[in-house]
């Protein structure tokens, strides 16, 4: 167990952020099985129940892709390419296995590139559907059960329903505590900066659930005791929307101008923490529903509304609620190039949020700091515009 609650939570988050995966490496040395996964669709409850340590993989935005392009086309989304590049350069050489959820074409179509190149002992492609109707829930349960079975074969241990139920409780608790921390961003100025928050989020996704919970608990306690500065709430309050943004570089570009990042709709952030798994008699049912229906990713088709407006509300309504709760002045929609799921949503998201009176800056870019200089001008101009 990591020590926390003794005032070093932020320092610990900083450490796990800057040495990403170091804790998993330690746990591996201590005999744990480490399973890497990509995207918010990785069912961590099941991996936890299997006794493994789930590690969400990230790349390195300040490192150029040098090896990966020999294996993977540049039309694959830059996030996936960067993580792959990091993986073949050995950043994750301690992994026992990986699970790739069917999130998007960039992941689906490179499944064999990953598995053949990395050649890990355990490999699983989790074929998550894109639709949320009843048959899809049934199917999701089927493929989750298959996933459970392959994990059992790999670890040689049965994964009981009780173990899954326990893992569900642990992850729900982890989410609840993270939401508590998020609540500290509602003040003006927010008690916790966007950059700090990013480091905590990243650190959390690299830890086993108990350690993540302890870390976030500790950090929250520390931050709660901060004093709100009497002045200084002047910069605009920003929400960041996107998929896998897991580095402070862009946040520092935002906050460097005096603006404050107060909320996100990121797949490593609120998307992950805003919806719990319901404790159902068959625990797989609750997990299937959470990942397919509650997790608001652009990779699931939602067509429940009778009118288009209702459909939009179902897809993006939560963002409007964030804007109210966190008093957001402007939103930045950051989409990676070659990302079809997000790319096709841009006009809809933009007009949906703008119709509520919140300006949106849309950025399309690489997973890299090399283009940040150009982005900065846009971000700054946007902030000047809404100031």
């Amino acid at each position, binding site marked *: 167990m990591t020590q926390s609650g003794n005032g070093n939570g932020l320092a610990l988050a900083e450490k796990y952020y800057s040495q990403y995966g170091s804790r998993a490496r330690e746990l591996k040395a201590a005999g744990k099985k480490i399973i890497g996964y990509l995207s918010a669709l990785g069912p961590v409850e099941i991996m936890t129940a299997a006794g493994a340590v789930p590690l969400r993989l990230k790349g390195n935005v300040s490192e150029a892709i040098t*090896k990966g392009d020999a294996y993977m086309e540049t039309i694959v989304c830059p996030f996936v390419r960067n993580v792959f590049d990091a993986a073949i350069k050995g950043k994750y050489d301690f992994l026992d296995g990986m699970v790739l959820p069917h999130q998007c074409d960039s992941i689906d179509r490179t499944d064999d590139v990953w598995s053949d190149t990395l050649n890990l002992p355990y490999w699983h492609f989790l074929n998550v559907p894109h639709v949320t109707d009843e048959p899809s829930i049934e199917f999701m349960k089927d493929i989750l059960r298959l996933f459970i079975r392959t994990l059992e074969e790999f670890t040689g241990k049965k994964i009981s329903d009780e173990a899954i139920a326990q893992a569900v409780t642990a992850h729900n608790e982890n989410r609840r505590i993270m939401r508590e921390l998020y609540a500290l961003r509602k003040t003006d100025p927010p008690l916790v900066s966007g950059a700090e928050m990013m480091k905590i989020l990243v650190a959390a996704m690299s830890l086993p659930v108990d350690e993540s919970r302890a870390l976030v608990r500790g950090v929250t306690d520390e931050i709660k005791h901060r004093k709100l500065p009497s002045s200084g709430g002047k910069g605009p309050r920003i929400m960041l929307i996107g998929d896998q943004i897991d580095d402070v570089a862009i946040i520092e570009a935002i906050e460097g101008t005096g603006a404050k990042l107060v909320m996100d709709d990121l797949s490593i952030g609120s998307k992950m923490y805003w919806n719990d798994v319901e404790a159902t008699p068959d625990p797989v049912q609750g997990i299937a529903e959470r990942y397919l229906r509650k997790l608001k990713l652009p990779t699931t088709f939602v067509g429940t509304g009778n009118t288009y407006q209702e459909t939009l509300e179902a897809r993006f309504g939560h963002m409007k609620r964030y804007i109210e709760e966190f008093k957001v002045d402007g939103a930045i929609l950051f989409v990676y190039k070659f990302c079809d799921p997000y790319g096709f949503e841009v006009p809809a998201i933009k007009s949906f949020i703008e119709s509520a009176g919140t300006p949106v800056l849309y950025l399309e870019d690489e997973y890299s*700091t090399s283009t940040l*200089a150009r982005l900065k001008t846009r971000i700054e101009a946007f902030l000047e515009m809404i100031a």
Partner: protein
Amino acid sequence: MAHALGLDIGSGYSKAVICENGVLHSFAVLPSGGDYKGAARRVTDMALQGANLSFNDIVRTVATGYGSSMVDFADHFATDIACHAAGIHHLFPLVRTVIDVGAQFSKAIRVDEAGRATYFLLNEKCAGGSGKFLQIVARILHITIDDIGPLSLTATKPVEFTTACAVFAESEAVSRIAEGALPADILAGVHKAMASKIVNLVTRVGLMPDCAVTGGGAKDAGLVKAIEAELASPVTVADEPQITAALGAALIGAEQAATGKR
């Protein structure tokens, strides 16, 4: 004496080689400068002068390269891939992998024991990782192309170059300078970025020793060193790497003349 003329009219440079019975007799190199037709004539005249010959002494002319279609006096046209393969095979028969760094494209070519290309890949659609990239950076640094190699070898801490775009390379170079980076370190950084792009191509065609670097880029000792480091294996460079394709063209011409092929 049978003389064959090989012309490589590249987007950057025009090269002429005259071979006599399968042996290099003379050569010339000239910037193409946009006028491929004129450059082809001028570089031919230069090579003829160097060999003390007139055009009537040439039994066969083979042209290759980006602007080769402009050469109205050629008997035959060959692709630069085939010419690089033939040229390098003549110089170094053991070479199985050729890396050509030209002005616009970089290529990786696999060559068989008969000097024929069996597989090749090019960087496409983007001029990143090509000689152009370097030219642009050199211009910003106010140094001549010939100085790039020697200067970059004095680098102590290469600047991490993240931009792949030849045009934006310019602004990245500018900001690096503004940050106080030394020209040598910038060049070494560019070399490193280019080398990793080039080596990706090589990985894809499959590296088979021996490996040679050709084209104008091979004259750049810094780039060659970076490629070696990235490949983790040594490479061969000819004395005049830039004329490899022209040499290959001349050799193809000589062969065709010998076998009476039209």
